[in-house]
């Protein structure tokens, strides 16, 4: 647990000692185990490499030249995609950033405050609240999407940004993780001391507890960001207006049109490339936060 929480600085020292001990025990390299992992890496990188090559071709080359051979039309394709229906693609990118970014931020804050209260307060009904929330962990958002549609249709919220944003803010798993982070990283004495000095509860949470939970909250944010960005069914059901689509629903629609107009394929491929690049960069930058223990174990030594 502590390893997950104190990730920022001590981690660096830890890694240093790890490396030192690794050097001391350094053993003969095993070509078999290195090789198997490299094969796995190639399998995982291959489609990304392919899309990079394919997006540099124009639509006639796509089906006529060898598929891993790069061409020179990448920029033309980007321009063409940007011109498609007055920049609809970039509108989708912006929408995705709103759904995933704003949604994940809101979700992280709500998970944090709920987890903090469940970890640090004693109140009647606490166990019941926590158990019910925990039951929600494995009720997948996807199964809720159709019921949510019926319900939001009743109040006339379907086909609005809210219909995609709001249902994804609640994250029982995020609350569950936040409870563990809060229990481990916010000392009760600090809360009590602030109370004695007359600080309000919200002030204590936002200014004192929240920063202490920092690294753990980044993990929750990433989890939620990926969950929203990955959730195809909810926007697919909720939205009819293509100005509101996220990239995923938009590209899937373009692919559908491709069946009758193969020139669309180039747009779809270029769009796929452009939309995964920022995600991959985000991932590489924040990689150290991905130390995932699904049960975020108290079992850790």
């Amino acid at each position, binding site marked *: 647990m502590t390893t997950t929480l104190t990730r920022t600085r001590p981690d660096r020292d830890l890694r240093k000692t790890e490396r030192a001990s690794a050097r001391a025990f350094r053993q003969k390299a095993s070509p078999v185990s290195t090789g198997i992992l490299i094969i796995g890496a190639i399998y995982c990188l291959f489609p990304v490499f392919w899309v990079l090559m394919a997006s540099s071709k124009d639509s006639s080359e796509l089906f006529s030249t060898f598929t891993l051979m790069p061409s020179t039309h990448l920029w033309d394709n980007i321009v063409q995609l940007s011109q498609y229906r007055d920049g609809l693609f970039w509108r989708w990118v912006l929408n995705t950033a709103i759904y995933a970014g704003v949604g994940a931020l809101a979700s992280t804050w709500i998970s944090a405050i709920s987890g903090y209260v469940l970890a640090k307060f004693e109140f*009647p009904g606490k166990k019941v609240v926590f158990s019910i929330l925990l039951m929600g962990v*494995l009720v997948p958002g996807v199964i809720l999407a159709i019921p949510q549609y019926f319900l939001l249709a009743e109040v006339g919220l379907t086909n609005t940004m809210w219909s995609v944003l709001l249902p994804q803010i609640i994250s029982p798993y995020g609350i569950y993780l936040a409870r563990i982070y809060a229990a481990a990283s916010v000392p009760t004495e600090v809360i009590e001391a602030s109370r004695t000095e007359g600080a309000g509860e919200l002030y204590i949470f936002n200014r004192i507890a929240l920063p202490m939970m920092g690294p753990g909250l980044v993990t929750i944010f990433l989890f939620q960001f990926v969950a929203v960005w990955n959730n*195809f*069914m909810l926007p697919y059901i909720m939205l009819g207006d293509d100005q509101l689509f996220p990239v995923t629903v938009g590209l899937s629609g373009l692919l559908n049109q491709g069946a009758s107009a193969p020139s669309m394929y180039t747009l779809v491929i270029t769009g796929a490339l452009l939309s995964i690049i920022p995600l991959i960069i985000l991932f590489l930058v924040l990689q150290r936060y991905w130390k*995932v223990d699904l049960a975020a174990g108290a079992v850790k030594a």
Partner: protein
Amino acid sequence: MTVTEAPVATRSSTPSVRRGRGTFRSRVLVPYAMLAPGIILFVAFMAAPIFYTLFLSFQKTKVSGLGLGSGARSTVFAGIDNYVTTLTNTEFGASVGRVLVYGFILIPLMLGLALLFALLLDSRRTRAAGFSRTAIFLPYAVPAVISSLLWGFLYLPAVSPFYFVFDKLGWDVPSLLSSGGVTFAIANIALWGGVGFNMIVMYTSLKSVPSDIYEAAKLDGASEIQIALRIKIPIIAPAIVMTALFSMVATLQVFAEPTTLRPLTNSLSTSWSPLMLVYRDAFTRDDIYSAAATSIVIALVTFAFSFLFLRVVQKRAFGQED
């Protein structure tokens, strides 16, 4: 509810915040006010949809006369009719069967590879581990729609480099997008997207084991493979169980991959997976009542897994705390 819970709270040996003279306000109102946003969203977007669907699943449309005019259609109580329809629907049975086959292909392969990769990453004799770990985890950043799109093109014989090679070798390989191969095609997409995540979960779990255990085993003459089989795998067994549960639940709800692949192949029906069937019933056929019943059936199966999850997790994570 409060009455039954109160003794638990007072008995608890580690009260997180001790309050000498807690008023009602500070003891009850403050925590509930802070929980309010979470509770409200939970009720509005998780509990309410479930109950509303439950309500819908017991109703049906009754058509009187020729079904024309505004008063001709009315909603009546249906009892368990919709459930009977769902459970006897051969299309539903077939979609569940397809998803089971898909799961049987995907889950052992994905978790087996994830475990193998995690153990290899943990081995001191592996080189370039940082590169491989990052590369294998990378597809997790790619959403299912886009990975289906990429693989969909890689499956198309006209575009695929694999078929180019097969062609040069003179092999006649049937298309993965044919009716026999499409389950493998979808399983491969899910494998590609999921193996890295599961690998990281297992690897994180391995990293938390103090290494002196291995040193001791090594002094006793155990080989790397023996250490992996006898010590490492049993220690991270809980993590493997968790990944298996998560994967099973994800399998039941596969939707994005087959929906995205549909334009590229004729072998995916609109009822290929249970959720696709629900979608079709609700939106193409406008039969929200039987769609609701089918949703409930899927949710109940998922819930069965949830309870299993709950038991595993509570024993692990909260055994010591409460």
